[in-house]
């Protein structure tokens, strides 16, 4: 299940945010603290997660302290489904 979530997130992030569909993202790779996902795209990511996984992420949680990797994000989503 977590694998599926991670794969869906990778597809979304690489095609919609990075516009680099061939890009791979490792589950433990830093997303926010590395600047891979810029602040303007964080709202998009939260809306995508809500629409596709039914998990709400509050705007005050959109920072590297709450999640910085796909693994952490997938765990957060699973915990809220």
């Amino acid at each position: 299940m977590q694998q599926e979530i991670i794969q869906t997130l990778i597809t979304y992030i690489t095609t919609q945010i990075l516009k680099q569909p061939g890009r791979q993202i490792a589950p433990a790779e830093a997303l926010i603290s590395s600047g891979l996902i810029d602040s303007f795209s964080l709202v998009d990511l939260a809306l995508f997660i809500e629409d596709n996984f039914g998990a709400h992420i509050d705007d005050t949680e959109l920072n590297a302290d709450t999640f910085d990797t796909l693994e952490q994000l997938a765990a957060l989503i699973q915990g809220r489904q």
Partner: protein
Amino acid sequence: MQVSAPNSPPAFSPQETVSRVLLRDYQQTPDTVSVYLLDSRQHDSPITYRNLFERSLAFALRLEQAGIQPGAVVILILPHSADLICAFFGAILAGAIPSIMPFLTEKLSPDQYRSSLSALFEITRPAVTITYPEFLEEVLRARGEQRLPKEIIVAENIPTPLDNDFQRLPGLLADPDHIVLLQHSSGTTGLQKGVALSHRSVFNQLNSYSRAIRITSEDVIVSWLPLYHDMGLIAGFLMPILMRIPLVLMSPFDWVRAPARLLRAISDHRGTLCWLPNFAYNFCAQKIRDRDLEGVDLSSWRAVINCSEPMHWSSHQMFLERFSPYGLRPQALATSYAMAENVFAVTQGGITSPVVVENIHQRALFDNQRAELSNDADLSIEMVSAGQPIANTSLRVIDSNGKLLPDRQIGEIAIRSDCLLTGYYNRPDLTEKAFIDGWYQTGDLGYLANGELFVTGRKKDLIIVGGKNIYPQDLERLASDVEGVHPGRVVAFGVFNEAAGTEEVVIVAEVDDLQPGIRQLTADKLRQHITRNSDIALRYAHIVEHGWLLKTSSGKIARAANRDKFIAEIKPTA
């Protein structure tokens, strides 16, 4: 063509200074709330004029203790907070010159931030930096061998003075022609060009601009804009505080994560005025859910003013369509052309009549540099007017020889006013270059028609992303740090993204090793390096083979030509 507006009776006297206005507000309206500072949970902390003056006084006395001399520069590196506001005014009360620097965000590499700070310190030679405890280490490292700034003040445990012996403060004795603040734009290039403004220029701007937007005591200004940028610093900070207009202020960091907060704040505080860069119209229209707008009432909003990057009518329409069900009125849509060198506004559109929008013949625009009206929607582009000059400001459009151009002919915009910069701080060379016969040469291109200004582009290769000015040479220099990327074989430029309503940054680099794996790796490294070391997120990192980039006859990379080639070959999808 040259246009001027009639002079206006001043609201502030020509002898006014910021310190004296603050003192008067403190004495006359101590219990009036000046700023409602919103936190990330939408709770607000009201700051009265008494709080503002007393806390600023505390900073002023602390600066005196540190041996600050009148006219010395104080760099402020603080998050959006009451401390930032009061440290700013405290420096002015102490007779010093404050300059606000962006705060280090989590994505920025500390190394790069430190070298930006060093570049800033070298030119401005600040006496003091005020910062937060967690940031002390960075500032200490950035000051390097010159040990400038000499003094670093940590903005905590600053005691509130017991005896308010403020009458002798140097700031209260300041001359209106003294420099009151410095404003920088971003990047290594921008940090070396601090715009120095006098009290007189600031108050002349406030007099003219408040009149242009018909400010009254009924107004409430709402802003999420950063204070290190002219739009946020003047329209969203100094103007309301000094004119006793309530200000509802939130952090850009909070807004970008929850754009609905801006609309909620307007609704809760019956906000009337707000300034936004063009991309924010798209951002708000696209990223706010209906549930976040429940109960929001925007009927109090009398002007939302588009400013600081190229304006697009489609962005206005998108915004209006999204928010008119919540009470936003079409006549609230307004525009402005502004720059730090004129304190803030040069022109104002809307407010008393709808913003002028023209359909311009596209071919004539590109081929003849003429803006001819067209009836054919397919062959034309919509141009949004930035309005007419504010009082005591003249503008003209000139050709490369400085000759006045007729109406509708595109040329460089030059301005003359009573609120221009004193100079680029410690850079007389740059100041001299910027003026011809008393006219400030903006570097922006545009045309005049019936007294209205239309801005069409830029003379210099400047990229404007979300209202932030980015110098491509800074990005190209950074790109050359990446393994496999070489100086002179890399180019940076902006490409307009219709959906986002702003430019997105593209970097094209020639590399020798074109194996797919290496290519991908270089693109990744490039993206990461630029994103972590600049104020922008790199959208397109494009790796090409040797010989792809177009050069001028003198062997320099031609940015505009390469931009056209990129769009033609690799048209980016929105």
